[in-house]
């Protein structure tokens, strides 16, 4: 699948190395790509934790981490090192298999979702033809990890947290899926790069006008819920459940859950940016004539994602938490019907071509 797209830099790397060194080179190339993604995962996770703490601090009249390294940039690295060095211990009579697989599932799910995110033109590990579908399919695996963690910990608070999480993520998957399908109607393809190419002249948020705005709203709500953030942080609602499903994890076990949460936020923002705001395309073709196109693409992509993420952080530090029945009411009685009607509306608009395009 990597080899399908010749403009893909990762694909070129694989081709080049396998031509030079045969099968060994191909494996080396895969390892290299995996290493790039793993390091991106770690760096992005740590950076997001840092940004979250800083943003939270500014919302809360505090300074946030500002001691370790310049502007406290190394704080999260220090924290990660601390967590690495800590002993991993859990409860007695835990279900060891589930307990241990839980965090791997969570982290693998978000790592695999990351692989189809288009960072820029040609910077994407898998440009498969069902990209968006792949993301929503794989990210559901993460729910399993949370359920395993909740069940395997042998702790009632974890169990309640896990069950809440299962309820919440499965419910909101529907809405985010519907919002994605609504936008896919505009693109006519599930391929991530195809969706972005379709927005070359007009971003979908403008092209699809009213239904696109509704879809964006649904997507943001459902995305926030899927990444377990306030106002949907019931699985870990610390005033109620301590830390919810990851109460009984320590050291890197906890850190995996923690990092995965932040990477999920990144993935949701990236999908949102790809679907609604033209991914790595420059606004108004600002940088289209400049050299270093892939880098400019990455620049615009990360700028847009940063804005998206900032909004999600803003929600987190200003909203109270919903109750579980209110959460389900919101999904099943409001978002889902609205989403369904929205798809029909979008389909009609696309069929009769009542769209805004430049």
């Amino acid at each position, binding site marked *: 699948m990597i080899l399908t797209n010749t403009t893909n830099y990762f694909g070129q790397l694989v081709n080049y190395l396998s031509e030079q060194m045969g099968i060994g080179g191909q494996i080396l190339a895969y390892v290299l790509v995996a290493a790039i993604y793993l390091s991106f995962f770690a760096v992005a996770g740590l950076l997001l934790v840092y940004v979250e703490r800083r943003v939270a601090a500014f*919302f809360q009249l505090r300074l946030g981490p500002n001691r370790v390294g310049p502007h406290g940039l190394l704080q999260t690295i220090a924290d990660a090192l601390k967590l690495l060095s800590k002993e991993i211990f859990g409860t007695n009579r835990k279900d060891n298999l589930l307990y241990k697989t839980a965090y791997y599932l969570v982290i693998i799910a978000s790592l695999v979702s990351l692989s189809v995110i288009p960072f820029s033109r040609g910077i994407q590990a898998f440009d498969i033809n069902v990209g968006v579908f792949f993301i929503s399919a794989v990210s559901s695996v993460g729910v399993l990890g949370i359920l395993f963690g909740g069940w395997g910990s042998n702790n009632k608070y974890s169990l309640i947290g896990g069950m809440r999480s299962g309820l919440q993520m499965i419910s909101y998957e529907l809405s985010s899926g519907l919002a994605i399908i609504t936008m896919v109607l505009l693109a006519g393809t599930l391929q991530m790069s195809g969706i972005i190419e379709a927005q070359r002249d007009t971003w979908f948020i403008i092209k699809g006008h009213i239904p696109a705005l509704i879809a964006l709203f649904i997507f943001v709500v459902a995305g926030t819920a899927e990444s377990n953030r306030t*106002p949907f942080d019931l699985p870990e609602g610390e*005033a109620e459940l301590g830390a919810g499903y990851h109460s009984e994890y320590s050291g890197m076990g906890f850190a995996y859950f923690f990092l995965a949460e932040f990477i999920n936020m990144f993935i949701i923002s990236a999908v949102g940016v790809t679907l609604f705001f033209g991914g790595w395309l420059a606004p108004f073709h600002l940088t289209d004539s400049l050299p270093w196109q892939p880098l400019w693409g990455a620049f615009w992509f990360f700028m847009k994602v940063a804005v998206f993420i900032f909004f999600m952080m803003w929600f987190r530090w*200003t909203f*109270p938490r919903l109750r*579980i029945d*209110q959460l389900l009411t919101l999904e099943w009685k409001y978002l889902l019907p609205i989403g369904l009607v929205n798809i029909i509306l979008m389909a009609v608009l696309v069929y009769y071509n009542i769209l805004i395009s430049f």
Partner: protein
Amino acid sequence: METLTLNSSDLKSQEYFLNMGPQHPATHGVLRLILTLDGEVVKNIEPDLGYIHRSIEKQCEYEGYKQIIHLTDRMDYLSAHINNEAVALAIEQALEIEVPERVKVIRTIMGELTRIASHLLWWGVMGMDVGALTTFMYAFRDREMINDIMEETCGARLTMSYSTPGGVMFDLHPNFQKRVKDFIPHLRRVIPQYDELLTGNVIFQKRMKGVGIMSHEDAISHGASGPVARGSGVSCDRRKKDPYSAFASRDIQFNEITFTEGDNLARYNVRMKEMLESLNIIEQLIDNIPDDGIQAKTKALIKLPKGEYLQRVETARGDLGVYIVSDGKKNPYRVKFRSPGFSNLNALIEIGKGHLIADLVAIMSTLDFVVPDIDR
């Protein structure tokens, strides 16, 4: 042949126990609730007390009357000054001492500042309990100003021990009036901000309205007091009912805030409005603090005449009763504190049933427990 049928009545879920506390972020201390849960629905609540019981009442029997005051700081530490005042008033009542007017005014101002500080802390924690973490920091920013005022005058920020039998320990700091006058407009400005941040939020309103309803009768029969009872429409403000200190000696205009709904939102609103009323009270007193000394004449060793003495005051949590039985010696024969938190906890058992865990946490927050006050 037997057919397999499935009725909804066959599908029974199993009830289970959950220990909420003694170490739990929502119990605000070491309160242990043994919950019987069906899924997330609370079927039964059984509070288990005593995790922070320090025998304050018993210790009082071994201490002189002047020392008792310092123990009361540690009961409801958020209304420390009002607790001190209650004991001091009880002793003064027994000795029939007339304290100077200045002392009365100082005590009342300090008491109202304490009440505001306590309500501010409650507001911050209330937000946290329903998931809005930012409220905590805002509340603490403003509470800090009160703590600084306290620190300047009595040298302590939390456990003031400022009142003594017959007066107060030190005179007011020269900055006191100015700082209090700075604080009043500041709080008046920030409370609308609080409302914007939390009160007006749709999610918050949905979480609060109609949840944890305590009827007028329930409030009375459980002996609830303070903002909890006033949220159910029970008029029970001791400052109005049997005035003490400056409430008795001065003509202070203030409203007793009552709401009739009895739900979480009513209790929330009572406290929010009470802060503004406390500001009104302080404003009426701060400009004319008389200058007639800070200590009435008392003996070095206080001995109460034989008898029983009761003093009730309104702390931030409700009706605190100090009941002293004296046999004429230098320490009391028996001291009993009627703490508001204990009675309010009783009410939780009734109103918490049938709610979800999340609601139970919110209800506990609006009942505003201070666990050392419940256990003593």
